[in-house]
């Protein structure tokens, strides 16, 4: 049973994607950004070796730990072979060159908390390269999320060859970075988090609004953006109110993904979506994150978009949606961050609100879900926020 190829493939695809990303980040930290290709090679070789071994011997008890150990051993061999000719991460070079300190240095770097920090470091580094947002997102999908080139290409509806070119250019920039950005102290992180949020928002939008029928890659993209945003929201310095708002927005949208399309992949209008398919746990998480985002004075577009998603989540049926509130929220959004998409959505909401008024449903707000205090309400226009 354990070595049944179909079962193996299923487990392996998901695991490989997530672990490939993490391992690439920690190896890039150790080998240095100049050697990001070497880091990717070690990971690819590790995965190939794993597939071979697991096909022959079945899945190990702890596959992720197996992969981590194998990658670490491979990296040690590589460092031993190349340390006289290749410069690794400058702050680690001396320690890696001595057998007294090579293994004692490598060992703790593969602990989960360290790996988590390296994932964040890679995200910050990618987002601070002078690159257009799609290039940053493609780089993150490749290096941090472990997506294959063809998967990223299909997401952007572009050819593998041109995606490959875009990645090569992006990696060339990354290679010149002085070091995988030291996360730095709380204020340093807080000061540099906006490009990361923007990239995650772009990644999420790419998956969510993908043209054409929804396909697996797009849904995975949304979930990856959600996962990475969750990492930021858990990091003490990166967890700003707007980080939590973005996380809330993603939770509240990903929760509703299952109902969004027909089995054939066509988008369903709101009224036809089966709300029983919504992920209630994820909605709860999103509402809690929204409550946690209501700190301080700064209102971001993420806050407003999260509030809009919350309005939809709070309605038990489409016709219970408080369209008047939604219109007001779109007004706020257009003030903060005008876009054709938001303008269109507002126009639709205006029409729905009008329809609701005519049908005598104006202003009624159904609270069928346990609303988190203030989750759907924003401060009055122009007024100072009160802490929730």
């Amino acid at each position, binding site marked *: 049973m354990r070595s049944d190829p179909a079962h193996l493939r299923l487990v392996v695809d998901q695991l490989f994607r997530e672990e490939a990303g993490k391992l690439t980040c920690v190896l890039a930290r150790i080998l240095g950004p100049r050697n990001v290709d070497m880091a990717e090679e070690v990971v690819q070789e590790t995965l190939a070796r794993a597939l071979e071994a697991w096909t022959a011997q079945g899945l190990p008890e702890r596959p992720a730990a197996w992969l981590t150990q194998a990658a670490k051993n491979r990296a040690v061999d590589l460092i031993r072979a190349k340390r006289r000719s290749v410069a690794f991460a400058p702050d680690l070079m*001396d320690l890696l*060159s*001595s*057998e*007294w*300190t090579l293994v*004692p240095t490598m060992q703790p770097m593969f602990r989960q908390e360290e790996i988590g920090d390296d994932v964040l470091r890679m995200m910050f580094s990618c987002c601070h390269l002078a690159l257009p947002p799609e290039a940053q997102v493609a780089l993150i999908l490749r290096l941090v999320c472990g997506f294959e080139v063809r998967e990223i290409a299909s997401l952007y509806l572009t050819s593998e060859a041109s995606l490959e070119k875009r990645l090569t250019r992006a990696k060339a920039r990354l290679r010149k970075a002085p070091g995988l950005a030291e996360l730095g102290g709380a204020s340093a992180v807080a000061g540099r988090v906006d490009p990361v949020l923007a990239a995650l928002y772009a990644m999420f939008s790419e998956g969510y609004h993908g043209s054409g029928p929804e396909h697996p890659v797009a849904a995975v993209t949304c979930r990856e953006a959600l996962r990475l945003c969750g990492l930021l929201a858990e990091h003490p310095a990166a967890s700003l109110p707007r980080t939590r708002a973005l996380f809330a927005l993603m939770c509240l949208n990903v929760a509703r993904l299952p109902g969004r399309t027909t089995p054939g992949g066509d988008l369903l209008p709101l009224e036809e979506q089966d709300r029983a398919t919504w992920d209630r746990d994820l909605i709860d998480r999103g509402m809690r994150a929204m409550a946690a985002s209501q700190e301080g004075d700064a209102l971001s577009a993420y806050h407003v978009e999260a509030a809009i998603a919350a309005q939809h989540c709070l309605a038990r049926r489409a016709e219970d949606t408080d369209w008047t509130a939604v219109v007001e929220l779109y007004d706020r959004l257009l003030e903060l961050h005008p876009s054709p998409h938001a303008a269109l959505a507002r126009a639709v909401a205006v029409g729905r609100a009008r329809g609701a008024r005519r049908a005598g449903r104006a202003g009624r707000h159904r609270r069928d879900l346990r609303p988190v205090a203030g989750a759907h309400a924003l401060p009055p226009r122009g007024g100072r926020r009160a802490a929730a």
Partner: protein
Amino acid sequence: MPDYMLLLRGTYHVERRLSPAEMEAVMGRFTQWIRELGARGQFRGGDPFRQEGRLVAFGGGPVVSDGPFLETKDAVGGYLIVAAETLDAAAALATGCPLVEAGAGVEVRPIQLMAP
């Protein structure tokens, strides 16, 4: 700062005297001591030696024999290269080495810069 070699002597002897747990603790402190040297920019490299060797000498022709005898308190178990201002400074630095505390000895030699 010039470079100095630290030859670590009698480390196998130390290892035989200590329990595995004690040795692990000493090596942990030793590794940390090297990291601190590194943080101050004074660590230039070094490696441990495996406990075996050969002696090559000339006696009518090149002769290879087993040796040296590694059980002694002078047997070299590894080396470090450190940067220091003077020989005395390098020696003072070596007094802080956790292996010395555990009973090893260190021979401190300045690296000779050969005249051009």
